[in-house]
């Protein structure tokens, strides 16, 4: 597997940092290398939060990358800010509950998922980021359901163990949505 440079961005509170950390935890669990870091620099001003994640089965060199292989955009400012910095054969996944329909570009697949609507249907808007996770995993096939479930259980811990089920449902719902769209990436 080539190293994957992943940018996750949105408003603070949308679960952006957690989305990125779950990927890095999953890589570590699968015995490959994961790296996560929160946004630094002037771009943190203006209400958007973002993090960079790199997963690779080789040694990870630069923690900083110019172009992302995958962009997960939870809001419009994030999409506008990062969509110009995509690598060849990239994937942009965006929140179509808050962003108007986007067209795919040359060499970049663009997929919208109405994560807020799906999460609301499930009865908990807080799992919108896990709907996005389901869609992301369905397209990229980066990690197995077992790996992700184990990480979610670990993060939620015993105190919030009752939330594991709704998070699992959210992931399934995200996967189902992408399956119905019929788009394929990896």
């Amino acid at each position, binding site marked *: 597997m080539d190293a994957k440079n992943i940018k996750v961005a949105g408003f603070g509170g949308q679960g952006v940092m957690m989305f990125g950390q779950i990927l*890095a935890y999953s890589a*570590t669990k699968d*015995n490959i290398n994961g*790296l996560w870091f929160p946004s*630094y620099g002037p771009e943190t001003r203006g209400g958007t939060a973002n993090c960079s994640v790199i997963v690779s089965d080789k040694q990870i*060199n630069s923690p900083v*990358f110019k172009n992302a292989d995958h962009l997960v955009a939870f809001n419009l400012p994030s999409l506008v800010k990062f969509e110009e910095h995509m690598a060849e054969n990239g994937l942009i996944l965006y929140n179509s509950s808050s962003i108007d329909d986007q067209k795919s570009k040359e060499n970049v697949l663009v997929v919208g998922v109405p994560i807020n609507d799906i999460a609301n249907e499930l009865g908990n808007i807080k799992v919108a980021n896990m709907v996005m996770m389901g869609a992301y995993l369905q397209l990229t096939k980066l990690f197995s359901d077992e790996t992700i479930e184990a990480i979610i259980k670990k993060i939620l811990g015993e105190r919030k163990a009752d939330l594991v089920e709704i998070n699992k449902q959210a992931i399934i719902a995200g996967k189902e949505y992408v399956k119905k769209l019929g788009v394929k990436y990896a």
Partner: protein
Amino acid sequence: MAKVLMKGNEAIALAAIKGGVDAFYGYPITPQNEVPEYLSKHLLDAGKVFLQAESEVSAINMVYGAAGAGKRVMTSSSSPGIALKQEGISYIAGAELPCLIVSVMRGGPGLGSIQPSQGDYYQATRGGGNGDYHLIVFAPESIQETIDVIKESFDIADYYRNPVMVLVDGLIGQMMESVDFDRPVKERFLPEKDWATTGTKNHPGRRNVANSLYLDPQALEQHNIHLNEKYKLIKKNETRFELINFDNPEYIIVAYGTMARIARSAIEMLKKEGIEVSMIRPISLFPYPEIAFDKIPENVKGILTCELSMGQMLDDVLIANNGRHKVGFFGRAGGMLPDPEEIVDAIKNFNERVVK
């Protein structure tokens, strides 16, 4: 043990526990706060000492005292906090006491910013404290290397009776990586701390004193000569560096810490374009790996020093190069991080980068 994903600052704290730290004294400052946060729980759980002092000056003098009593002791801070600690650091070096000082660099000067920087190279290697002294300074490039060097640093400090500084930029403190805490540490023979001020009931008939005051100039000169001999020994034994892609290079990059990681990616990109670039990656900043520069082939077009500063290690590169090759500089400062493409451009336009 399987790898775990851990934040750099927390990994520093856990590595210190694995290295046998007995006591931590510190004062909060971003971007290293997860170090004391982690230790405030786990060091106390282990029955050791954790103390948040009322100031940096107080914290470093507590380190001085506990080190004098023969304990394995550490502090951590960031740029302006390390500045406040310099007086105590000089005293500890003068009194020849072992300790670990972790410095997580942020932008400067003054209060600067809380973003990553390498602007404290001079502070670490030239001393902000007074007098003829050196710290042993290690500058790891990843969280894994930070763990490995911290686990070893108490042994190194004890062996030489000298403070060790582990110098990282804020990015290493704030990011998370997959790491292994169980990599082996080099075994060292460590003599008993018969100098420790543990009370005369523990060393009957001998009065142990931790002191850096020598009013007799002859005695102080002898002390300075003794310290200098020790620094020579450290230079001989503890110089550390890595040579990367050292195969018929056109250019040489010299970089440490996060900048070395970014340069690794730049070197791979340049290789794809048919431009061979090697890197000297200093791991010890004192002693500086001057010896690595003797390995540079005569026909290289130049040496590019890359730093997250306006050029500080550049001085040591110029000294080590000793006029043999053209030396250029690429730097970002203030908390800005370059992407690898910027280093690629700097190599391609090396002539615009030449400083000497």
